[in-house]
């Protein structure tokens, strides 16, 4: 499902970016031109974007219905399972560690009077949880605004509605993409993430990894 999501998202992002052919709005002016050549015209590009978009949305809708009890609800439970104090500290400490290193973390922690020990996290760490919210709800907004634009083509949306839809679509995609950059880095390129990355295909992680990154979850699993 994740790869379905990722694959569609990337395709949609690239084609969507290519649909913006306007000097004021497009920083990468050759990208739309390239894509139009590849797809044989702007109309085909739009069609491809719309088809994949509908497929993506449809896929998630089905998934959401079929796997509501088994996947969706637990997912949301986990996402909103937040310990403010602990998780905020994780954000600070992990953030500093990722950018400046453990030594710097130690120094800064001492200076500002907080523990340099990175707190434990559950199935998802708070960073993942924070990303999950815009990813999911942003995704919904993107779908709704996108569908509005499609509806316009069959006369079910006014120009004003479409104009707002375009704006919202663009902003939401942009923000989620910004978060996506971190997500991709964290999930694949960051040091020690290999097991996690591999787990997206296999479905499981080594215990060591789990202890280090998601101890709270490991404890829970061990309990049951």
């Amino acid at each position: 499902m994740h790869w379905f999501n990722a694959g569609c998202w990337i395709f949609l992002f690239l084609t969507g970016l290519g649909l913006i052919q306007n000097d004021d709005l497009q920083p990468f002016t050759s990208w739309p031109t390239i894509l139009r050549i590849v797809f044989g015209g702007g109309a085909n590009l739009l069609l491809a974007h719309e088809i994949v978009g509908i497929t993506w949305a449809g896929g998630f809708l089905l998934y959401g219905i079929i796997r509501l009890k088994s996947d969706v609800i637990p997912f949301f439970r986990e996402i909103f399972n937040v310990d403010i104090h602990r998780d905020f500290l994780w954000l600070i400490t992990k953030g500093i560690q990722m950018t400046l290193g453990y030594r710097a973390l130690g120094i800064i922690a001492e200076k500002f009077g907080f523990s340099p020990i990175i707190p434990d996290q559950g199935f998802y760490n708070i960073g993942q949880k924070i990303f999950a919210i815009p990813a999911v709800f942003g995704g919904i907004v993107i779908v709704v605004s996108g569908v509005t634009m499609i509806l316009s083509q069959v006369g079910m949306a006014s120009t004003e509605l479409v104009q707002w839809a375009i704006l919202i679509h663009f902003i939401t995609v942009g923000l989620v993409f910004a978060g996506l950059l971190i997500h991709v880095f964290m999930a694949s390129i960051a040091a020690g993430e290999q097991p996690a990355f591999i787990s997206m295909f296999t479905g499981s992680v080594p215990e060591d990894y789990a202890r280090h990154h998601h101890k709270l979850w490991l404890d829970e699993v061990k309990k049951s």
Partner: protein
Amino acid sequence: MNKQLAMVIDSSVCIDCKACTLACKVENNVPEGKWRNWVKRSEPDFNKPDWMVHSTSFHFQPGGCMHCEVPTCVQACPTGATYKDEKDGAVKVDPKLCIGCGSCIPACPYGARYRHPTRNIVDKCDYCEKRRARGELPACVVTCPTKARVFGDINDPKSDAALLLKKNQSVRVINKESDTKPNMYYLSATAPLNWPVKAKMPDPIQLWKMAGPLIWGIVGLNAIGVLIMLGKQILMNDKAPETDESHEETRQS
């Protein structure tokens, strides 16, 4: 040399019979309530006590999409669905790419565009493309009783339109704040002159133009953050202080 299709109009012979607007409407299935072309009317200033004394005090001005050199409508379109065709100079709408957002509509100082109620895309004069493909002139040109409209390639010095421009003074009707350099020329003089409005962008699109850099900025910041983390990862040998050795082992192996 590339063509520039244009209209050269002698508005002084226009009698406001509206034949051109009806011919266009029939030819192009223009829906009720919408028009691809028009005849503007200039009346004498009735407040002047001697308004009757001046001769020829009505003036009628046939018009339509002016297929401008600097089309603000094209500037407003997010997807490039409307564009100026380099080959013939006409401003066109790709009906399959247009999503009907209508940003181009207020962006035209002449109000030449409208959203088609059933096709749901933006529609406007296309110089009767289908007629031209059959070797015919646009419907409005052919039907006019006084032949006020002359159509042709003004880049071809032998065309009727180009010759008229060469031999006569001509004016264009523009809005001073949005001079789109229209390709519709009126011979000698014409009235009314001050009717085109400033090209306007709809509010959401204006917000988009402002939000764009902001969003790219945020993306950029995130990208920078990622690059810092990547850089740190590559360049720094970062060891966690006194953690369980198994973790170190994992990382090392």
